[in-house]
């Protein structure tokens, strides 16, 4: 094994010491001008291949993480992970794959109205963020996933979502009008639809099971 270059050592120490993942620009700021950052990161990744920790890129930023297969050995299980309701999970997936997406679109895709607590929950965890308003009547808020979401699931970019390419290819991410007559019928039944929304709220409240 050859001795690591001074530049590589700096990248290594910087990724390691920084409390937050760091961008390639931030790394470049620590090194002589003109240093090939990408090559250094490749070299670093090669060095850590097969080891207990490794450099990973999430949300366009680099940090060290324990290797995925170490999970069972490291599991401390100090805190039980939150259990998410199916509604919350599906809503997260819809936002992730279809972003930016409005509340109405989420409801249309799931075919059921969205309880209030669902978006709140995802917002509280820090996995989604509001992202501008759709330029249609009513200017509804649009939602996107956050960097925290990418970091949590170990994704570099939204395009790296599992199966995203296939979904796109199949046209499933296209925007399409709701089943036309259903929309019309719904308008006729406005009052009942509201009652249904209430039921949804109840369900949302149990979205986050707090298990000790």
């Amino acid at each position, binding site marked *: 094994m050859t001795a690591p270059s001074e530049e590589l050592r700096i990248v290594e120490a910087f990724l390691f010491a920084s409390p937050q993942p760091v961008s390639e620009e931030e790394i470049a700021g620590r090194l002589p001008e003109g240093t090939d950052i990408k090559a250094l990161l490749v070299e670093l990744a090669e060095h850590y291949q097969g080891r207990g920790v490794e450099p990973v890129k999430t949300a366009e930023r680099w940090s060290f993480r324990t290797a995925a297969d170490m999970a069972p050995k*490291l599991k401390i299980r100090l805190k039980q992970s939150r259990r998410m309701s199916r509604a919350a*999970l*599906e809503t997260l*997936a819809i936002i992730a*794959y279809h972003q930016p997406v409005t509340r109405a679109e989420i409801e249309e895709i799931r075919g059921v109205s969205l309880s209030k607590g669902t978006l709140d929950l995802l917002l509280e965890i820090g996995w989604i963020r509001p992202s501008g308003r759709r330029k249609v009547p009513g200017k509804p808020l649009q939602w996107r996933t956050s960097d925290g979401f990418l970091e949590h699931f*170990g994704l570099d970019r939204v395009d790296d979502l*599992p199966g995203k390419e296939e979904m796109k290819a199949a046209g499933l991410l296209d925007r399409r009008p709701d089943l036309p*007559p259903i929309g019309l019928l719904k308008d006729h039944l406005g009052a009942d639809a509201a009652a249904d929304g209430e039921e949804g709220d109840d369900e949302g409240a149990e979205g986050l099971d707090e298990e000790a």
Partner: protein
Amino acid sequence: MAETTEPFEDPWPADSAATPSAFIVDVAGYEGPLDVLLSLARQQKVDLAKISILELADQYLLFVAEARHIRLDLAADYLVMAAWLTYLKSRLLLPEAEQEDPSPELMAEALQFHLRRLEAIRDGARRLMQRPQLGQDLFRCGNAEGLPFEIDIQWTATLYELLGAYAAHTRRTESRGYRPPPMELFSMEDALVRLRRIMGTLPDWGDMFALLPEEIKGGIIYRSAVSSTLAASLELTRQGFVELRQAGPFAPIEIRTKAKGEGA
């Protein structure tokens, strides 16, 4: 391995609810009519794009009819979907005589699209949750030491502040009031104080100018001392404290304390 470490509840009851009777009992287990339709469609075990919409509509209408026996308050969404499917079914069964739009085929295709899209999202959610997650499967550095930092202090002052400080200083100096330059010369008052102090200790005649301070011999200060002392001596003579005498022009002027009782 991800299956075994999956901490999320398995959120899809579809498989466990594989029998029609289970549907009816468990309306609340479904997240809306589309969810029910998707479950029913999966029972056909064919590609969702090739699913028989007629069969699906029949199954759904049956489901709703059965469910209503148990729950009269069945949500509006379910009934709307039932009405729509009835309509779609009737259109599909009718010979394609009139060209109304949207065509029933298009409507059926739209329903298929919705079902496929919902299934794709569920698949996406499942795969997302199977990824190793931070703080659960992957860990960041537990005790990152943080980056050391160094503070560069930059002292700032503008020219205005600099001049302001000088002006303030100037004003402060002036506001102390008028102070005449300290007198360099030996004043009459100095001479009076000094003569009064010395004369009490001189019993006999003495050269007046020999009494001047040793350290100021020569120069303008000495001369000022000579004149002020002479003036002071005249004043003291007038007041009757001392006597003066001079033997002749340019002779030394002698001075002595006036004897007590001799009167002025």
